[in-house]
Structures are given as structure tokens and as C-alpha cells.
């Protein structure tokens, strides 16, 4: 996922095109950063940018950030957020907010991304709501201390694992699913009993300001806050000491967040992205398969999703058939002129539009287009585009595309495809379409990814029983369902001992008999214990 701006401490973050220059000397003045001004320009150029800067004249700086966190820390220390009732009331508040303000949410998403209503509904609103419902339903169970067995070594004793809130946590969310990716972590943080600060992405301004308004209206202001803003605000926030930081966005900013967290020894969850592959076998039911690919690419925010299909791997012989079917499928879904279709989101802003066009217009890439390729700069729209056999070292195969272009790589056999996937950084998701059971097995065994789904795309993230998170370049930590609760909880081991049944063996002075007894005790060797106790032992 690409978050074009963000930063921490004295480290400045540069715009997208400055990648991999983390060891540059630090720039002292923010406004001198060309990427930031480019971003601002691009945002206003998109035309749907609501007026919001005026009312936010007051800059959110270091002193505001420290004041905010002090307030929230006081609320947390009062113990209010720990109670079951508080958690439930806040979760109910979120549920109510989603129910009552569905129209506003859909509108904000439309303003930010031209997201079709139905897509907004099923990918953002419903998912947030069901994760809220799930938390409400299970919370009591999640909060219950878990009794664990104790061994003979520590006999007699009892033990349990208590879930306790971490404290004050920071959630930095992304612009592509600005509502879901803000609320889903906040739900986890609240369920676990924390005080939360949410920093929505400034690149989806309408949703950001809507969230700021709604959360204040529906939730407990003294423990749940929204801070809107871009790099300077995020920098001010990251300078503070948090008890957990959850960040959704790009690997580059993820590194900055983690480095900032290291200064305070703050644990992090990083939900990043990566090039998610889809390997397509020739024995599939083509029509269904293509529909699912379309749902996992263009109907997923025009490919601007961290788990949308980034590229396809298939066999040389099958590629033409697949392309034909894709052509038909795209027409069925988005009409003859997909660029005019209201059923597809637009590109978020001019900056990303330009980035995508640059990927597409690379000399060696452009003539590989087999479908689509049209773009409309004014509307920030790019038609569903399929490319065949682009060079491996072209930019479009090097970085996460995060847009409506879909390169197809061809291989001799699909096992070779596994190697292609494994030769790249580990993706957040990997997909396989096949009816071959053996291939499915090999895929699960040999390909490493955050999560994987066979014969479909994206749907696995809606399963609350599955953890959602990356590995390697695609992230650290996981959430969703109970995993969200766990991510924002500390698992405290609690052990109870009584004063009875003490054995002097543990304490000095150490005698040879004690040593033998100790050995037997630790090894759980009952006969050894008895032998040692009656001082009957072999030399």
C-alpha cells in the first residue's frame, strides 16, 4: 500500500519518488520538501477536495500531541476504559454510528475515491459492522482469564493468563479503505480496553474529516480521539510514547514508524502490502475464475487494495484463453467503455495517477498492453488494463502496482510460478486458481505469504477466524476478530502459590541430596523424587 507522506521525529519522509534514500541528510524544513507540495497540488487538482483547511488553522504540534496523550493517559489510568461496560458502550456507539450515518460514509467515500456505493457498502461498511458485532458478541469470552495447567516442577500452584489493555495506542490508517482500515483497528483497541488516537489518512480528506466528526459525536471523547493531518501531525504523534502503534500503509513509512517506536520500545503492528500474485491453472472453470479475478482486482477499489491481485502467473498455452475471458468478463462487469463505468473507483489523486501512467508508459511495457490502456486524466480514471509478458525488471514488476493494471506472466509450468513468487519479497496475500489437489498442497507448503486463498481472491480477509497480517516486507503482526483483541492486549501470566508444600531444596545451602532431588523434580521424574527423598540413590 502506498502512503505518499508521513514521518517521525527529526526524520522527514519524502514523497513516493524518493524511495530508498533513507540515509539522506535530514531536511530541516517541511515545506521545502517538493513531494509534499506536489501532493498538496495534486490533491487540490482532483477537484473533489472539500474545504477543510480553514477550520484547522491551529497546527497540531509537539505540545498539542503531548497534551493529548497526557489527557488520554489520565483517562486510561482512571481505569474507566478497562471495564466491560465501557468497552461495550463504545462498540455499540460504533455500531450505531455506522447504522445511522451510512449515507454520509458512502458519500465521503464517493468524494475521496468515487467508490461505487455497493463496493463501499460491502467492502467498508458491512465489514466494519460485522467486526464490531463479532467483538460485541465475543467480548466477554475474550476478556476471561484463561486457566492453564501447571506442571509438577512448580507444584502446588495454579495459573492463568490475564488479558490486560496496553494503555494508550495510536492507529495510523490508510486512504484506500479509509473507513474500514480506520475503524477495524479502533474496534480491536477498544475491545481490548485501550485509549485510542486515530490518525486517518489526509489523502482521503472527506473520510478523514467525517471520522473526526463522527467519532467525537458517538464515542467517549476522553479516551477516543481523532487527529487529522499529514506529515507534521504524524511526526508530532510519533514523537510521543505510545503503548502500541498500528500502522497501515507502505513499507517505507512502516520502517519510519518502527524506528520511531524503537525509541520508546513501543511494539508495532505494520500492515503493509506487496505484490500479491494469482497463479492460474488451465483446468479451472474459466468463467467463474475470471469473475473472481475481476472482483479481486478492479472491483477492489480499482486495484488500490493491499490484497488485490497485483499480477497473474499462468502457462504459455493458457494465457490467450484467459485474456479472451478477461475481455469478456470486463465487458460484462463494466460495459463496453469501462473508463466511463460508475462501478469502478477512480485513482485517489493526481500524484498516484501520474505514478500509474508512468508505470504503464515505460517503453518496454506500453506495447505489452493487450486490453485497455485508456486513461482520463480529468476524471483520474484508468481503464482495466491487462499486459502480457512485461519484462521482469520493468518498474511495473518491481513495485506494488496499486492500480487497475494487471500484468500476466507466462511460465512453462506452474511450479515455476511458485519460484517466481518466492523470488520476490513475501506478499500479503497469494492466490491460486486450480482444481489440482496436489498443486494446492504444494502451493500452501512452498509459497510464503501473509495469507492465501485458493480459487478466489480477497474473500479470506472477511473470515474473522483467520488472522490478517503480513510477513517480511508485507508487515508485522496480525489482526481481525480475536486476533485484533490479542494485538491490543498484553497477555499477563499470573501464578498462584500457597505457602504450603514448600521444599527447602530450592534454597541454599546446597547439598548433594538437594541437587539430586532438584534434578528429579525438574525432570518430573517421580521415582527419582522418591528415591532422592528417602536418600536412596546410586553413586
Amino acid at each position, binding site marked *: 500500500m502506498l502512503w505518499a507522506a508521513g514521518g517521525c521525529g527529526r526524520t522527514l519522509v519524502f514523497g513516493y519518488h524518493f524511495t530508498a534514500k533513507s*540515509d539522506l541528510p535530514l531536511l530541516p524544513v517541511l515545506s521545502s520538501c517538493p513531494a509534499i507540495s506536489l501532493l498538496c497540488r495534486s490533491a487540490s487538482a482532483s477537484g473533489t477536495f472539500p474545504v477543510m483547511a480553514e477550520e484547522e488553522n491551529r497546527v497540531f504540534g509537539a505540545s498539542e500531541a503531548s497534551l493529548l496523550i497526557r489527557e488520554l493517559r489520565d483517562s486510561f489510568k482512571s481505569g474507566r476504559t478497562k471495564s466491560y461496560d465501557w468497552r461495550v458502550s463504545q462498540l455499540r456507539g460504533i455500531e450505531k454510528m455506522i447504522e445511522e450515518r451510512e449515507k454520509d460514509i458512502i458519500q465521503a467515500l464517493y468524494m475521496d475515491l468515487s467508490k461505487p456505493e455497493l463496493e463501499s457498502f460491502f467492502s467498508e461498511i458491512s465489514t466494519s459492522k460485522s467486526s464490531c458485532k463479532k467483538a460485541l458478541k465475543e467480548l466477554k469470552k475474550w476478556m476471561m482469564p484463561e486457566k492453564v495447567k501447571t506442571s509438577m516442577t512448580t507444584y502446588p500452584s495454579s*495459573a492463568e493468563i490475564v488479558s490486560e489493555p496496553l494503555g494508550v495506542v495510536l492507529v495510523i490508517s490508510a486512504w484506500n479503505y479509509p473507513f474500514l482500515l480506520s475503524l477495524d483497528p479502533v474496534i480491536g483497541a477498544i475491545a481490548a480496553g485501550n485509549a485510542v488516537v486515530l490518525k486517518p489518512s489526509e489523502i482521503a480528506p472527506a473520510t478523514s474529516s467525517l471520522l473526526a466528526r463522527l467519532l467525537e459525536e458517538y464515542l467517549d471523547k476522553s479516551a477516543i480521539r481523532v487527529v487529522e493531518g499529514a506529515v507534521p501531525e504524524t511526526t508530532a504523534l510519533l514523537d510521543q510514547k505510545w503503548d502500541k502503534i498500528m500502522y497501515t500503509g507502505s513499507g517505507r513509512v512502516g520502517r519510519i514508524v*518502527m524506528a520511531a517506536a524503537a525509541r520508546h520500545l513501543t511494539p508495532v503492528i505494520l500492515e503493509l502490502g506487496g505484490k500479491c500474485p494469482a497463479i492460474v491453472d488451465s483446468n479451472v472453470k474459466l468463467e467463474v475464475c475470471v469473475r473472481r479475478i475481476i472482483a479481486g482486482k478492479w472491483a477492489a477499489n480499482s486495484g488500490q487494495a493491499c490484497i488485490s491481485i497485483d499480477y497473474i502467473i499462468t502457462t504459455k498455452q493458457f494465457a490467450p484463453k484467459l485474456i479472451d475471458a478477461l475481455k469478456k468478463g470486463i465487458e460484462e462487469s463494466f460495459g463496453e467503455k469501462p473508463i466511463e463505468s460508475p462501478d469502478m473507483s477512480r485513482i485517489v489523486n493526481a500524484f498516484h495517477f501520474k505514478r500509474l501512467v508512468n508505470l504503464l508508459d515505460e517503453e518496454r511495457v506500453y506495447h505489452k498492453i493487450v486490453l485497455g490502456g485508456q486513461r482520463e486524466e480529468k476524471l483520474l480514471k484508468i481503464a482495466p488494463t491487462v499486459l502480457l509478458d512485461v519484462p521482469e525488471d520493468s518498474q511495473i514488476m518491481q513495485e506494488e502496482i496499486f492500480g487497475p493494471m494487471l500484468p500476466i506472466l507466462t511460465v512453462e509450468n506452474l511450479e515455476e510460478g511458485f519460484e517466481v513468487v518466492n523470488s520476490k519479497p513475501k506478499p500479503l496475500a497469494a492466490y491460486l486458481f486450480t482444481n489440482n489437489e496436489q498443486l494446492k498442497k504444494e502451493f500452501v507448503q512452498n509459497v510464503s505469504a501473509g495469507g492465501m*486463498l485458493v480459487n478466489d481472491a480477497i474473500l479470506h480477509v472477511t473470515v474473522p477466524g483467520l488472522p490478517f497480517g503480513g510477513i517480511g516486507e508485507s508487515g508485522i503482526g496480525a489482526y481481525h476478530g480475536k486476533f485484533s483483541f490479542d494485538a491490543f492486549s*498484553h497477555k499477563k*501470566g499470573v*501464578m498462584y502459590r500457597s505457602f504450603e508444600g514448600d521444599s527447602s531444596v530450592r534454597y541454599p545451602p*546446597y547439598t548433594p541430596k538437594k541437587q539430586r532431588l532438584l534434578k528429579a523434580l525438574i525432570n518430573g521424574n517421580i521415582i527419582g523424587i522418591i528415591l532422592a527423598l528417602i536418600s536412596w540413590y546410586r553413586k
Partner: protein
Amino acid sequence: MIWRAQPIIGIKTGGWKRREEGYIQRLYDKNQAANNFAHIITHHLVVRRQKMVDLEKELAAMREYYSSGNTRDASWRRAQLRGLLLLLHENQTEIFNVLKQDLGKHPAEAYRDEIGSTIKSINYALDNLKGWMSSEKAKLPKVALLTTAAIVPEPLGLVLVISSWNFPIGLSIEPLIGAIAAGNSMVLKPSELAPSCSSFLAQKIPAYLDSNGIKVIEGGPTVGEQLLQQKWDKIFFTGSAGVGRIVMAAAAKHLTPVTLELGGKCPAIVDFLSSSWDIEVAVERVLGAKFSACAGQACIGIDYILVEKKFYPTLVELIKIKLKTMFGENPRDSHSVARIINRHHFLRLKCLLDDPNVRASIVHTKKSQEVYIEPTILVDPPLESMIMEDEIFGPLLPIITLQKIEDSIEFIRSRPKPLSLYAFTNDRSLRKRIISETSSGSVVFNDALIQYLADTLPFGGIGDSGIGRYHGKFSFDEFTHYKAVAWRSFLVDFWFRFPPWNDHKLQLFRHCYEYDYLGVILTVLRLKKPKPSSAS
């Protein structure tokens, strides 16, 4: 505590090469006479760079070995765990010796804290490995027809374990058990401050384990720094918070997840205990957890005691008596208290006592000599003194008196979160309050240190006392990626999942997400009218 906190310079190899070469160039330019000197430096740098290149090659080979899939086999994991077991069984005398050399540990203490506990953990891992390795089915809602889902554990790859000097064998092998059980390849860097143990591990581990997948790299801060510049799939660090920050900052460059096992000032609340048996047992346990666990140089050792003012005279008297029975008139000769690791730490601890106000609070001590400090008890040293600000990590035990024992909760809350909290009390309501109102890595009632042995409890800190947890299955989890896997069939599909969108499809989504199956059927049969959509 372990390394000097050195800044990590020039993460990109190119960066420091260039900088160092520029420096050499300037030396040449400035003064021709310095030529010889520059030659020496150049030679030194060449050697260092060569070492770095060698290290990179070595790690590349390990990655290759990991990719071959050998370390993933259950049989490999078992063989390595058995190898560790054999190592511990066959070399006990030698381990006793190296621990005696580095820390003056008594064999009984060494067995209890380092050998025995590790053997127990290996056996536990061997017993449970099969269960840990198998994937877990995930529950699915009914709308997900013909779908199955599972959570599949998979190893992370190449991991780095950096261990500490206070339990140089135990804290090296304990994380290795998890890393092996999870199927990773790994590098262990033992602490250079326990040199005998470090070289013992470097010698023995290759003899008992598969050296293609498991390596020991010895060295100090320079080696540590070089290791941290490499890309790892996990870094497991035991040590101080200062170095922990450096480790995590270095890990951030490669997005490497970290487990940090740090320390903190672990308090022991001693409530008024009415039965004399209880008091005696409590004091024994406190003293055992303080002085007989590496002379207080343990991250979960008791750092200080909190006690009610009216109870403390009884407590101090009993402590003095018990100290005598445990360690004799002359504790040094009892060989039951370990020594201080080195002169640096010895001076640090002496420095803590140099504050005249702290010195005045000592109620029990003997003379300290060389690098040995006798068990020392202090009552009410100033709270703003170093001894009450820093983790003591030595055989000094301050007792802080409070008006009411309940005040201990606020006392603990106002300080950084400790790795462990101990409370000796029979008062149920106090126990409850301690659990819910204070925060610490773990809580133990009426005992201390013993949580280290519980395989079923997570062992790890919170806040300044660390990130992540291990022991038992938690060790396996810490070195495992839980991959979410779902399988779908091509048979059933909801046609309304795909564009072009219309109100009818929206209505179906509504029912599906609310698990309103009747609604789905009615809408499909067009018996229910869809709500009109709102946006344009």
C-alpha cells in the same frame, strides 16, 4: 547492561566504505609522514570489510540451506532438539565449570536455573511438537458455502538470537528451542561478557547440531553491530532496554519483527502474614529469588521489597536469621552466592551504595572484596537515589516501607512496568486489585522466579520490560508465521458479488452480512423489494 550503546553507523555497506575511505584519503593528503599509520588503518579496515563480506557469504549460505526446506522437516526439528538434549546431558560437568568460571555459580544453582530448566523445556517441545506444527481449522459463517479455512504455521526463515551473560547457557538455549521447533535456521550470538560459556557454546553446538542451519557467532559490540546490519526474519534479544532500542531501530531498516526480553525493577510486595510458617516461607522465597539466582543479576530477580511500616522490623529480623542459615556466617565461603560478572558491574553496584543517604540505610552487609558483594539489605533508601531509579541487578535488596500495603499499588503504577511482580499475601481482595490495577509482564503470588519454569505461561515484558513473549508454545509462536489459508470451490458463487452493481445486489449483501438467510432467499426470489440506494 551488556554492550556499550554504540550508534549503528553506515547501514548500507557502501556508506561506511565511502566514509572510511574518505578519512584515509585525508590522512594521506595532510601529512605524508603519517603514511605508515594510514597503512595500518587501511589494513585494519580491509580486515574488517573482509570479515563483513565473509559474514554475508556465510548468511547467504544459511538462507540457501533454509530454502532447501531441510529445517522445515519435523524430523530435522526433532533431531536438533534431541541434539540439544544430548549436549546438556553429556556436558554437565563442563557447563558447571564454565558457569563457575564466568559467574561463580554453584552447580545446584546452575542446574536449577540453566541446565534443568532447559532440559525440561526441550522435553516439553519434543512432546508437543506434533500438535504445534499441525494447522488449525478456522470456523466459517454459513454464507461461506463450500469454503474451508485453516491457520497454517510456517517458519520465519533465518533468525538471530542474541543472549545475555547472566544465564549464559539457559538464555541462549531457551530461545533456540523455539526457533528450532518452529523450523528456522538460526545464528546465536552469546554474550562476550561470559567468555567461557560463549566459547563452550561455540564449540559444542556445532558438534551436536546441524551446523548448516544453526551457527554460533562469538563476539562483542563490533560483531553485534555487524550482525544487526544484516537482514533477519526475526531478532530475539535478551538484555538491557538501551541495547533493545538499538536492536529494534536496526530491525526497522529491514522490517524485521523483534522479541525483546528486557528487565526492570521487579517489586515484591510482602503483606502482613499472620502465621509464622507463612512468614518464614515467604522470606525464604524472597531471599532465594534475590541472592541465589545469579546474585540478583536476573531480569526477574526481586529488585526491592514493599512492606508495611509496622511489619518491617519482624521482616528484617527474620531476613537476617534466614540469611545466616542459607549462606552461613561468611557467605563468600558458602559458594552459594554467585559473583558479580565483572569489574565494571562491581563498580556500578558499589557506586549505587556510595550515596551517603543510601549508605546510611544499610542494615545488613559484610565487606565486599574483589568482584564479590555480600547480600546487602537496605531500609528506605531515598526514592530518588540511583538504587531506586535503576534496575539494581546485583545482591542489594532495598526494603521500602509504606503506611498501608495497598499503597504499593500506586507505588508500582507510578514507575515503569516491571517484567514481574511478586506479592506475598493471603488477602484475596488485594490479589484481585494487584492483577487488575497494576501492569507487569507477569504476576506471581506467594513465590518468585518460579514462573520461569511454567511452560504454559507466557514469559515476556510489557512497556520498558520488553516486547513479545516466549516459553513453551509461546516460543514456537514467536518464531512462527501463522499463515491464513482459505480454499474455495468453483461450484457455488454469489453472482451478486460482481459488478455491474444495482440495488438488488446491495440488498443481497445486506442480508448476507447480517447472516439473514431468509432475507437472502426472499430477495433472490424477488419477494422483497430492495431499498433504493443513496449515492449518485
